[in-house]
Protein backbone atom coordinates (compact mmCIF):
# COMPACT_ATOMS: atom_id res chain seq x y z
CA UNK A 1 0.00 0.00 0.00
CA UNK A 2 1.11 3.53 -0.67
CA UNK A 3 2.20 5.53 2.33
CA UNK A 4 3.37 8.87 3.62
CA UNK A 5 6.02 8.88 6.33
CA UNK A 6 6.75 11.58 8.82
CA UNK A 7 9.70 10.37 10.81
CA UNK A 8 9.64 13.02 13.52
CA UNK A 9 6.66 12.44 15.78
CA UNK A 10 7.54 15.04 18.40
CA UNK A 11 9.87 18.00 18.00
CA UNK A 12 10.76 20.51 20.70
CA UNK A 13 12.59 23.69 19.75
CA UNK A 14 13.43 27.00 21.34
CA UNK A 15 12.22 30.19 19.74
CA UNK A 16 14.42 31.37 16.85
CA UNK A 17 15.68 27.87 16.15
CA UNK A 18 15.43 26.54 12.61
CA UNK A 19 12.90 23.87 11.76
CA UNK A 20 12.91 21.04 9.27
CA UNK A 21 10.20 18.38 9.29
CA UNK A 22 10.64 15.38 7.06
CA UNK A 23 8.02 13.90 4.74
CA UNK A 24 8.55 10.96 2.41
CA UNK A 25 6.03 9.19 0.22
CA UNK A 26 6.07 5.94 -1.67
CA UNK A 27 3.94 6.49 -4.80
CA UNK A 28 6.08 6.49 -7.95
CA UNK A 29 3.84 8.49 -10.27
CA UNK A 30 2.94 12.16 -10.49
CA UNK A 31 1.84 13.51 -7.16
CA UNK A 32 0.55 16.65 -5.55
CA UNK A 33 1.96 17.53 -2.16
CA UNK A 34 0.54 19.41 0.81
CA UNK A 35 1.43 20.46 4.31
CA UNK A 36 -1.44 21.10 6.72
CA UNK A 37 -1.23 22.52 10.22
CA UNK A 38 -3.50 22.13 13.21
CA UNK A 39 -3.01 24.77 15.91
CA UNK A 40 -4.30 23.87 19.37
CA UNK A 41 -8.09 23.99 19.38
CA UNK A 42 -8.33 24.95 15.71
CA UNK A 43 -9.28 23.31 12.42
CA UNK A 44 -6.74 21.65 10.20
CA UNK A 45 -5.74 24.21 7.59
CA UNK A 46 -3.49 24.37 4.56
CA UNK A 47 0.05 25.62 5.10
CA UNK A 48 1.35 25.20 1.54
CA UNK A 49 1.04 22.97 -1.52
CA UNK A 50 2.98 21.89 -4.57
CA UNK A 51 1.52 20.81 -7.91
CA UNK A 52 4.22 21.62 -10.47
CA UNK A 53 6.91 24.15 -11.38
CA UNK A 54 9.43 25.51 -8.91
CA UNK A 55 10.08 22.72 -6.40
CA UNK A 56 10.62 25.27 -3.63
CA UNK A 57 7.23 26.36 -2.41
CA UNK A 58 6.50 29.19 -0.02
CA UNK A 59 3.50 29.12 2.27
CA UNK A 60 1.96 31.16 5.01
CA UNK A 61 3.76 32.39 8.15
CA UNK A 62 7.24 32.05 6.67
CA UNK A 63 7.09 28.32 5.99
CA UNK A 64 8.53 26.76 2.87
CA UNK A 65 8.89 23.25 1.51
CA UNK A 66 11.11 21.66 -1.09
CA UNK A 67 10.01 18.85 -3.38
CA UNK A 68 12.89 16.51 -4.24
CA UNK A 69 11.49 14.02 -6.73
CA UNK A 70 14.49 11.69 -6.65
CA UNK A 71 14.14 11.32 -2.91
CA UNK A 72 10.32 11.18 -2.84
CA UNK A 73 10.50 13.91 -0.24
CA UNK A 74 8.68 17.13 0.59
CA UNK A 75 10.32 18.54 3.71
CA UNK A 76 8.92 21.53 5.54
CA UNK A 77 11.26 24.28 6.73
CA UNK A 78 11.20 27.52 8.64
CA UNK A 79 14.38 29.49 9.36
CA UNK A 80 13.26 30.84 12.74
CA UNK A 81 10.32 29.40 14.66
CA UNK A 82 8.08 31.31 17.02
CA UNK A 83 6.11 30.18 20.06
CA UNK A 84 2.94 30.57 17.95
CA UNK A 85 4.16 27.81 15.60
CA UNK A 86 3.37 25.25 18.28
CA UNK A 87 1.01 22.90 16.46
CA UNK A 88 0.67 19.54 14.78
CA UNK A 89 1.88 19.36 11.18
CA UNK A 90 0.63 16.87 8.61
CA UNK A 91 2.11 16.06 5.25
CA UNK A 92 -0.33 14.84 2.59
CA UNK A 93 0.08 13.41 -0.88
CA UNK A 94 -2.47 12.82 -3.57
CA UNK A 95 -2.64 11.53 -7.08
CA UNK A 96 -5.21 10.59 -9.68
CA UNK A 97 -6.45 7.04 -9.25
CA UNK A 98 -6.66 4.39 -11.90
CA UNK A 99 -10.44 4.76 -12.09
CA UNK A 100 -11.51 7.85 -13.99
CA UNK A 101 -12.50 10.70 -11.72
CA UNK A 102 -11.15 9.23 -8.52
CA UNK A 103 -8.04 10.02 -6.65
CA UNK A 104 -6.12 9.06 -3.56
CA UNK A 105 -5.40 11.46 -0.74
CA UNK A 106 -3.09 10.13 1.96
CA UNK A 107 -1.96 11.88 5.13
CA UNK A 108 1.13 11.23 7.19
CA UNK A 109 0.90 10.46 10.89
CA UNK A 110 1.72 14.01 11.91
CA UNK A 111 4.50 15.79 13.81
CA UNK A 112 3.78 17.59 17.05
CA UNK A 113 5.94 20.70 17.32
CA UNK A 114 6.39 22.47 20.62
CA UNK A 115 8.23 25.77 20.59
CA UNK A 116 9.54 26.96 23.93
CA UNK A 117 9.38 30.69 24.59
Amino acid sequence: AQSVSQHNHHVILSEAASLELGCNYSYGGTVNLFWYVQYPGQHLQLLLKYFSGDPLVKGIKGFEAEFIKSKFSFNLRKPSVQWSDTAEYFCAVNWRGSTSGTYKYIFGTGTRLKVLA
Partner: protein
Amino acid sequence: DVKVTQSSRYLVKRTGEKVFLECVQDMDHENMFWYRQDPGLGLRLIYFSYDVKMKEKGDIPEGYSVSREKKERFSLILESASTNQTSMYLCASTLGRMTGYQETQYFGPGTRLLVL
Protein backbone atom coordinates in the same frame (compact mmCIF):
# COMPACT_ATOMS: atom_id res chain seq x y z
CA ASP B 1 -14.26 31.59 3.13
CA VAL B 2 -15.33 28.00 3.02
CA LYS B 3 -17.11 26.92 6.13
CA VAL B 4 -17.40 23.29 7.14
CA THR B 5 -19.43 22.64 10.24
CA GLN B 6 -19.96 19.48 12.24
CA SER B 7 -23.02 18.87 14.36
CA SER B 8 -21.24 18.15 17.65
CA ARG B 9 -17.84 18.93 19.10
CA TYR B 10 -18.10 16.23 21.77
CA LEU B 11 -20.25 13.13 21.92
CA VAL B 12 -20.51 10.31 24.44
CA LYS B 13 -22.32 7.14 23.41
CA ARG B 14 -22.71 3.61 24.72
CA THR B 15 -21.57 0.44 23.01
CA GLY B 16 -24.20 -0.77 20.54
CA GLU B 17 -25.84 2.60 20.02
CA LYS B 18 -26.39 3.97 16.53
CA VAL B 19 -24.47 7.20 16.09
CA PHE B 20 -24.98 9.92 13.51
CA LEU B 21 -22.31 12.52 12.77
CA GLU B 22 -23.39 15.35 10.52
CA CYS B 23 -21.27 17.60 8.33
CA VAL B 24 -22.38 20.61 6.34
CA GLN B 25 -20.39 22.78 3.94
CA ASP B 26 -21.60 26.08 2.60
CA MET B 27 -19.54 26.53 -0.58
CA ASP B 28 -21.23 24.19 -3.03
CA HIS B 29 -18.32 21.75 -2.96
CA GLU B 30 -18.75 18.51 -4.84
CA ASN B 31 -16.44 16.32 -2.79
CA MET B 32 -16.82 15.52 0.89
CA PHE B 33 -14.76 13.27 3.13
CA TRP B 34 -14.88 11.62 6.53
CA TYR B 35 -11.64 10.89 8.38
CA ARG B 36 -10.78 9.66 11.81
CA GLN B 37 -7.77 11.09 13.56
CA ASP B 38 -5.93 9.02 16.15
CA PRO B 39 -2.63 9.78 17.91
CA GLY B 40 0.28 8.27 16.05
CA LEU B 41 -1.91 7.20 13.13
CA GLY B 42 -2.65 10.56 11.54
CA LEU B 43 -5.77 10.93 9.43
CA ARG B 44 -7.34 7.85 7.92
CA LEU B 45 -10.02 8.09 5.29
CA ILE B 46 -13.28 6.33 6.12
CA TYR B 47 -15.50 7.29 3.19
CA PHE B 48 -15.77 10.00 0.62
CA SER B 49 -18.46 11.24 -1.72
CA TYR B 50 -18.02 13.04 -5.01
CA ASP B 51 -21.69 13.70 -5.70
CA VAL B 52 -25.12 13.45 -4.16
CA LYS B 53 -25.99 9.83 -3.41
CA MET B 54 -22.51 8.73 -4.51
CA LYS B 55 -19.99 7.29 -2.09
CA GLU B 56 -16.75 5.42 -2.15
CA LYS B 57 -14.98 3.48 0.56
CA GLY B 58 -11.79 4.85 1.97
CA ASP B 59 -9.13 2.91 3.80
CA ILE B 60 -11.09 1.97 6.93
CA PRO B 61 -14.83 1.73 6.09
CA GLU B 62 -15.62 -1.24 8.32
CA GLY B 63 -18.24 -0.45 10.93
CA TYR B 64 -19.26 2.79 9.22
CA SER B 65 -21.72 3.89 6.58
CA VAL B 66 -22.43 7.28 5.01
CA SER B 67 -25.29 9.19 3.48
CA ARG B 68 -25.30 12.12 1.10
CA GLU B 69 -28.84 13.10 0.23
CA LYS B 70 -28.04 16.76 -0.39
CA LYS B 71 -24.92 18.30 -1.85
CA GLU B 72 -24.06 20.30 1.24
CA ARG B 73 -24.55 17.54 3.79
CA PHE B 74 -22.54 14.37 4.40
CA SER B 75 -23.43 12.10 7.29
CA LEU B 76 -21.32 9.42 8.92
CA ILE B 77 -23.20 6.61 10.63
CA LEU B 78 -21.87 4.16 13.16
CA GLU B 79 -24.45 1.36 12.95
CA SER B 80 -23.48 -0.17 16.30
CA ALA B 81 -20.85 1.84 18.12
CA SER B 82 -17.91 0.00 19.64
CA THR B 83 -15.20 1.17 22.00
CA ASN B 84 -12.57 0.98 19.24
CA GLN B 85 -14.48 3.70 17.41
CA THR B 86 -13.61 6.20 20.12
CA SER B 87 -11.76 8.83 18.12
CA MET B 88 -11.75 12.32 16.65
CA TYR B 89 -13.82 12.44 13.46
CA LEU B 90 -13.03 15.08 10.85
CA CYS B 91 -15.12 16.09 7.89
CA ALA B 92 -13.58 17.83 4.88
CA SER B 93 -14.61 19.07 1.47
CA THR B 94 -13.03 20.07 -1.84
CA LEU B 95 -14.43 22.02 -4.74
CA GLY B 96 -14.81 19.71 -7.70
CA ARG B 97 -14.52 16.11 -8.69
CA MET B 98 -12.47 16.51 -11.83
CA THR B 99 -9.97 18.92 -10.28
CA GLY B 100 -10.20 17.43 -6.83
CA TYR B 101 -6.82 15.79 -7.01
CA GLN B 102 -5.15 19.15 -6.93
CA GLU B 103 -7.33 20.78 -4.39
CA THR B 104 -7.01 21.92 -0.85
CA GLN B 105 -9.16 20.11 1.66
CA TYR B 106 -11.22 22.31 3.96
CA PHE B 107 -11.80 20.78 7.34
CA GLY B 108 -14.48 21.06 9.97
CA PRO B 109 -13.65 21.47 13.67
CA GLY B 110 -13.98 17.75 14.39
CA THR B 111 -16.20 15.66 16.63
CA ARG B 112 -14.57 13.91 19.53
CA LEU B 113 -16.53 10.71 20.10
CA LEU B 114 -16.21 8.61 23.23
CA VAL B 115 -17.86 5.19 23.18
CA LEU B 116 -18.29 3.64 26.61
